[in-house]
């Protein structure tokens, strides 16, 4: 090449140097500007979540950084945990330092209805009708709490704040056992009986199932009419901090375009630890849209969704860490092998290396992919994809497990294994929410059912209760009749 043409001489060299310095300065200024822009409010919450990385326990939950004072998150978590009872009363009025103490004090208060449901679930086999009124079988709450809150695995030293708080609450409950003899007193009871609006807690006018049955001259095990069933199902359980709130959907509105009607309008429900909640409705009722909104896949216009106390909009990373999901289309990275996909998910959810193998083995024992786990997902059948999606969603053992049409495409053996697993998983103190069209499965599996129609929430039913009272209750007939109503 011609070197002479490129030779720098005379005034050219200083000009080049000056221009280079100016250019470098501009680059530096631009980078600073970019950094500043990135800190603007739009990205602030996301950026904050990244700057304060959350860490993960074997249960897939997260922990606040060690340098942060524990009091602050504790206060926040407790406030969120007591929301079902406290919110209308004192959410804004009570200072944070007071709210820390209150729930601890509240642990002593036995809430009749809270205890009632686990008794029905755990002590009475499904096929045996309850001979005596449920209330008579009340056991001290600490026993239930202790049983339900036992984690499946040894806790890691990195513990998720919400889980930590929950454990503390449970420990405090265990230390101070609640018995039937101790009367329910204090602000919580007052709040429930006097100031809390009935619809918030699903307390019917008749108040308890026993009263409803008594009112109609029935006993547990008797065949009951749809009207009475409806009345019984609307009696909701009161949840104390022992059964912390896992998911709260408040006034959710979502539409796909500005001109379109709302695909989901004014949906409100709350899910608690240990619960299996079903989302039921016809095609296009808004079930998948609701689930996609709470998974953070879709934006929504109005409303609030919080998972383990973390707002999905304001604190998305923390909320997503507490959740595992399975989509209705079973979308996965088909160019990965099954095991690579699980490793990938484990990396994303920061599952520690030491628990991964054990967890995969445990999930494999339920879902039984066999050698196919080493094959590319693209070679999987529909059901196998469904299985690998479920396995992936459980790699971090989320507090909330969200499933969209989970039973579709599964073989009967796996379906049964999944159902058993779901029960055990919920029993271990986690919460499961799933959408389905399989009414029998829903009736068999769920504690509660949120009924949806044309994007609106029709009802929030306590199906477990009716199935306990009348194991032969035809939920399918009930649902179809309910669906027919306009």
């Amino acid at each position, binding site marked *: 090449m011609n070197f002479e043409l*490129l030779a720098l001489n005379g005034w050219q060299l200083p000009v080049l140097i000056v221009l280079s310095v100016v250019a470098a300065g501009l680059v530096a200024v631009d980078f600073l500007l970019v950094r500043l822009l990135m800190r603007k409010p739009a990205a602030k919450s*996301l*950026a904050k979540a990244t700057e304060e990385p959350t860490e993960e326990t074997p249960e897939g939950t997260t922990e606040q950084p060690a340098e942060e004072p524990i009091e602050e998150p504790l206060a926040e978590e407790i406030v969120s945990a007591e929301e079902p009872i406290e919110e209308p009363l004192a959410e804004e009025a009570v200072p944070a330092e007071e709210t820390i103490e209150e729930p601890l004090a509240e642990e002593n208060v036995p809430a009749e209805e809270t205890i009632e449901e686990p008794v029905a679930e755990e002590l009475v086999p499904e096929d045996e009708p309850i001979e005596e009124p449920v209330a008579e079988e009340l056991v001290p709450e600490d026993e239930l709490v202790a049983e339900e809150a036992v984690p499946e695995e040894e806790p890691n030293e990195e513990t998720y704040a919400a889980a930590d708080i929950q454990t503390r609450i449970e420990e405090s409950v265990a230390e101070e056992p609640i018995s039937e003899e101790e009367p329910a007193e204090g602000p919580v009871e007052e709040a429930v009986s006097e100031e809390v609006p009935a619809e918030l807690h699903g307390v019917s006018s008749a108040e308890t199932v026993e009263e409803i049955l008594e009112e109609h001259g029935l006993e547990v095990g008797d065949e009951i009419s749809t009207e009475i069933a409806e009345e019984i199902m609307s009696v909701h359980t009161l949840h104390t901090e022992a059964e912390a709130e896992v998911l709260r959907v408040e006034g959710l509105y979502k539409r796909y375009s500005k001109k379109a009607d709302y695909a989901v309008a004014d949906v409100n429900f709350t899910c608690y630890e240990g619960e299996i909640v079903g989302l039921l409705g016809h095609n296009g009722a808004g079930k998948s849209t609701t689930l996609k909104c709470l998974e953070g896949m879709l934006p929504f216009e109005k409303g609030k969704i919080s998972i383990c106390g973390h707002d999905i909009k304001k604190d998305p*990373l923390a909320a997503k860490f507490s959740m595992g999901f399975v989509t209705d289309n079973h*979308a996965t990275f088909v160019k*990965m092998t099954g095991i690579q996909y699980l490793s990938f998910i484990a990396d994303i959810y920061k599952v*520690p290396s030491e628990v991964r193998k054990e967890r995969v083995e445990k999930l494999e024992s339920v879902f039984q992919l066999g050698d196919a786990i080493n*094959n590319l997902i693209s070679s999987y059948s529909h059901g196998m994809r469904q299985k690998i999606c479920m396995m992936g969603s459980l790699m971090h053992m989320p507090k909330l497990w969200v499933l969209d049409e989970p039973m579709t495409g599964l073989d009967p053996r796996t379906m049964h294994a999944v159902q058993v697993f779901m029960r055990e998983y919920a029993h271990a103190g986690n919460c499961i929410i799933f959408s389905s069209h399989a009414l029998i499965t829903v009736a068999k599996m769920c504690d509660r059912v949120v009924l949806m129609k044309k994007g609106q929430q029709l009802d929030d039913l306590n199906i477990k209760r009716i199935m306990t009272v009348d194991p032969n209750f035809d939920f399918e007939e009930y649902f179809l009749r309910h669906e027919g109503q306009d």
Partner: protein
Amino acid sequence: MKDKIDFSVVGTLLKKQLKERSSSYRKGNFDAVGFILRWALVAVFAAVFIIFFGRFTEIYLSVKTDGMLDREARLYELLTIAYSLILAALVIGGISQINRQLFDADDIKLLTGMPVGSHTLYAAKLISIYLGQLAMSAVTVLAVNLSVAIKVSLGGWFYGMTVLVCLVLPLISLAIASILSLPYHALKQLLKNRFVISFILITAIAAALFYVYSILLDAVKEMMLGDNLKYFFNEAVMNFLGRLVSCLYPGAWFANFMLQKELLVSGIGILALTVVCLALSMLIIRSLMRWVMQSRIAGAWNFVRRKQSVKSARKPFIALIKKDFLQIFRTSSYMFSYFSIAVLMPLMVYFCMSVGSSIIIKLIGLDCDLELAIFLTVLFGALTNVFCSTNISREGEMFYSVKAYPVDYKAVFFSKIVLCMIVTSVSQLVSAIMLGATGYVEWWAAIFIFVSGLLCSFAQICFATRYDFNHAKFSTEEDGEIKESGNTVSTIIVLGMVIAFLIGGSVLLMRLLFTLRGVEGMGFLTYLVVGVISLCAALFSYFYLVRKLGVKYYEFSGGGQL
């Protein structure tokens, strides 16, 4: 009920195929930029081919053997070779068409469940494949025959028989292609999950094709710059060509037939071959289809991989990069369009550099290797990075799942950009080393080319990623693979080429102007202009990428899947 061919159903099936093919021209799907680009490219290729093949014909017909000029013998050789090459191209195209119509098509599985007879389905498939071959044959045979007819005065027979050749050649190619399609399919299945071997094989084939392309390019240069090509056809070469042509059947028959030589022998040869080939292709495609129908119902071949265990923890950012890498590497079309092209980019730069440099020196008498090297590096870099225009669309519906992962949006986007930058860095680095090592540019200039090339690539990758995010279109294929390029891809190709021509063209023009005006010592301006434009492009694209990205990421509900 006897399984007869129902021609009304055949018509319906053909209409269905036509509608499927024309779906990309419908409102909403129409890729206007791509359409213009494709047709412009076809027109340019056709024009270039006709011009250069005409010129080549002229040179070849004037070649003397034993001191004698025999234009008819040369024309026979030329047509024989041309028809043989066309037949080879048709066979390759035919293999691809048969594979697409029989092995990769999803409709067979659906249609076998419908009251569509297997003979009807077979007839529809055969006609469809033949029509595809006919189109290809018409374009190539017409281009050759017209180029020849411009240079040599040939009678009406030649023009009339051109139509016959167009119709008959696909029948022969179809038969050969149908024989080869099953081994090809088996090879494809064998390599399907052997990604490294596939990568090496695909890249090697592409490199060989580029080598052939460079030879052609060199020949074009020779044709443009003088009559060196004439001297290439010496006695030894001509003897070899004579021997070759004598065994190039059926090309030789067609050439003879067109030139009205040995009409009876060549006519019977062509007729016999056509009948045999027609029967053979019908028989083979029929049996292939039966096998395909059975195998598609029964399910695909499986490939058992060696046992693996769950890997130890990685950072989510690294996991995302690995995920993207696997997705590209394990999809053969993606692997070719990105990794293979990235590997071949230095070769392309080198081939074009060697041709371009000598052309410019001979035409203008100017040494502007640096400017040309910059132009070629930016141009081929831009063409390599076009793949980034599917960074988001490629994810398909999994993009929503990624959205639901506890990963910051910046990690999602920058993992893709980092992977693209790694690929482009390697390719730019090898190009720069090659330019430096072959002496086209000095080492420090090679470093400058590498840095400016990286800046341009960064600009293109950032811009393409954000543009794709804003206009994401997810594939409806079962595995989410994008099989058709959309508006985004075409736009990025055009923009990449505009930037390359802007940078390369401006510095080449500057060098030319200064040299013509006798202004010395302005070489530094090349560095300045290229450096500033690259830097500005990189900064602009970065801003374009990150602007309101967090908000848009939250609000994202595009892709056409919901």
